[in-house]
């Protein structure tokens, strides 16, 4: 009994992915020493079985973070721990073994499938790569995968161009599922699709999560879709996470002024509600991530910033504010 205790504790660790102080800087070139600070100190936890929604505007670093978490890009600094494995220090075979448990679904179903491979080959490739099963088992698995995502299992000899956008996205999902991952990063999986098709894919992702007990990191700029799918939501601005909370708390009681502005800018499909709604407009544009503003990087656009003062001088930390499980990086969190 005594020997089993630590094992149980390990099994029950509610956090699957721990992102700690992660940086990714892309050098601008030359000897200027300048760099695009795409991800600039991010702390985030992704819990087992949950869907964590990650939102923010173009260029805030959400897609870069996705690629760091899945080990597709090396970090500049910081730690990414996946189920007890520090993936930033893993190399070779060990990294491959961990990677098998994390997969990615991409935005563009036209660009993410090789046009010269049949659907069968596309789905079999990950099985070949990881040497899973015999040839016959792999073939059977491919058909099973097609059925899982709602496609005809006899389509294995067709090429991606023979499928519509929604069907291609299903193939992308089947490919991600091929190796039985426990964690899937979905990077804008429905933003290129028509509304009715997007609804099909969203429902499919929910079904698969339930069936295979998957953990999702769901990245999107459509906050309505994110709220629908996620258990918790993290908001990024200029390379940093500015707020994280339960999906309903973040909408009902946003603590960071950026979250509030972002939420207020989304129109709702209801003409009567729309008449009474006024979006908060932000001053100016997102500053360059090469040279982010001092102090709180949101201060030049913030409607409640005290400048000159603490907002332009001191960088706020992500600390508890508002509801249980809610954190925000703002000196005046909730005071608006």
């Amino acid at each position, binding site marked *: 009994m005594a020997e089993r205790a630590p094992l149980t504790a390990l099994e029950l660790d509610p956090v699957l992915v721990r992102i700690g102080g992660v940086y990714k800087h892309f050098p601008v070139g030359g000897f200027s020493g300048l760099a695009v600070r795409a991800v600039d100190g991010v702390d985030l936890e992704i819990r087992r079985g949950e869907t964590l929604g990650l939102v923010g*505007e*173009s260029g805030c670093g959400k897609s870069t973070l996705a690629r760091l978490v899945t080990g597709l890009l090396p970090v500049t600094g910081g730690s990414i721990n996946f189920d007890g494995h520090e993936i930033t220090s893993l190399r070779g075979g060990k990294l491959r073994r961990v990677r098998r448990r994390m997969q990615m679904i991409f935005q563009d179903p036209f660009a993410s499938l090789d046009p010269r491979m049949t659907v069968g080959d596309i789905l079999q490739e990950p099985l070949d790569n990881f040497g899973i099963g015999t040839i016959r088992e792999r073939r059977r698995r491919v058909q099973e995968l097609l*059925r899982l995502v*709602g*496609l*005809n299992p006899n*389509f294995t000899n*067709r090429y991606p161009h*023979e*499928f*519509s956008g*929604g*069907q291609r996205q299903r193939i992308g999902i089947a490919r991600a599922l091929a190796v039985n991952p426990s964690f899937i990063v979905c990077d804008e999986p429905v933003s290129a699709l*028509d*509304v*009715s*098709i*997007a*609804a*099909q894919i*969203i*429902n*499919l992702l*929910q*079904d698969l999560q339930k069936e295979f007990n998957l953990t999702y990191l769901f990245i999107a*700029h*459509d*906050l*309505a*879709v994110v*709220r*629908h799918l996620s258990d918790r939501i993290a908001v990024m601005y200029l390379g940093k996470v500015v707020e994280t909370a339960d*999906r*309903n708390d973040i*909408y009902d009681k946003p603590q960071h002024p950026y979250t509030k*502005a*972002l*939420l*207020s*800018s*989304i*129109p*709702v*499909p*209801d*003409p*009567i*509600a*729309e008449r009474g*709604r006024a*979006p908060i*407009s*932000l001053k*100016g*544009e997102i500053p360059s991530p090469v040279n982010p503003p001092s102090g709180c990087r949101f201060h030049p656009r913030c409607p409640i910033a005290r400048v000159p003062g603490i907002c332009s001088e001191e960088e706020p930390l992500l600390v508890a504010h508002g509801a249980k499980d809610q954190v925000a990086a703002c000196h005046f969190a909730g005071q608006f």
Partner: protein
Amino acid sequence: MLLQVEDLHTQFFTSRGVVRAVDGVTFHVDAGETLGVVGESGCGKTITALSILRLIPDPGRITSGRILFRGRDVTKMTDEEIRDFRGNDVAMIFQDPMTSLNPVTRIGSQIEEAMTAHERFTETVARPRVIELLKRVRVPAAESRVKDYPHQFSGGMRQRAMIAMGLSNEPDLLIADEPTTALDVTVQAEIIQLMKQLNRELGAAMMLITHNMALVASLCQRIIVMYAGRIVEEGPVEQIFNSPQHPYTWSLLRSVPRVDEARKDRLVSIRGMPPDLTQPPPGCKFHPRCPFVIDKCRVDPEPRLEEVAAGQVARCWVLMRNAREESVEAAKQSALSREAAEKLKEAPAAEVGGG
């Protein structure tokens, strides 16, 4: 009435057969109003707009119908007249501002060119007007930014420049095709506000083509819902959102999650895909995807657009108000469950041009 489109047919003559992209569409736009045109990709929204401007690409053409702008038939205009019409009466804003601006010409010169090309303004009048227009669409520091090239503008600023160009000749009708789809949400909100203000200030009518229901709710007074090249429902915006009568409209409205609501179980998705417009299904064109389908829908000729409420018309044998409660529940639940997916066995659809 500013624009009256009557029984418009626009077809594409491809090697696979005739694509009936717009198949007998009748609607009007009143002066100063904002009309929303919604539907999935490939249902004929964009082709309808391009038909009004007579910009249908080969191998397509308008095969019949009339497009009356202030009583003059656009389909019968000479080349000179159509040029004049495009420049002075109507303007179109496209989805992607980067591909619709010339990358090697300064923003100011492009807007100026749009004005002088139609000889409505001389160069001396046009130049100061460019700055005034950029100010009107809220481009900050307009005086210095007129000299910028498109790549120096952000996405939102480019879309503002496109709107400025669209407004430059004071058109009576502005056609906006997915004007905010390529933009971030905060920028989208600004462009929506801008379009609302301009509509109020200038009184220009607007035709907004989009698949974003929330955008329509925010901007439009009246809506047309298109499916497979036909209008299936039309009416005032509140009416359509509160009591949609065509199952297609009903499904479209329920397929998008709302940011202001806590999660409901599932989204209503519409099974399958829009039909191949070279061989549309017999009967009601929506019947293969309709959750409320009855035998009549498959067999009888397509229903006519019938008045269902004041100002609201719909084309359906089984209007939503007649749909039995249990079938509405069933449709909400059916949301592409695994069994439904099995049943579908959808063959890969051939992509149809347009949309």
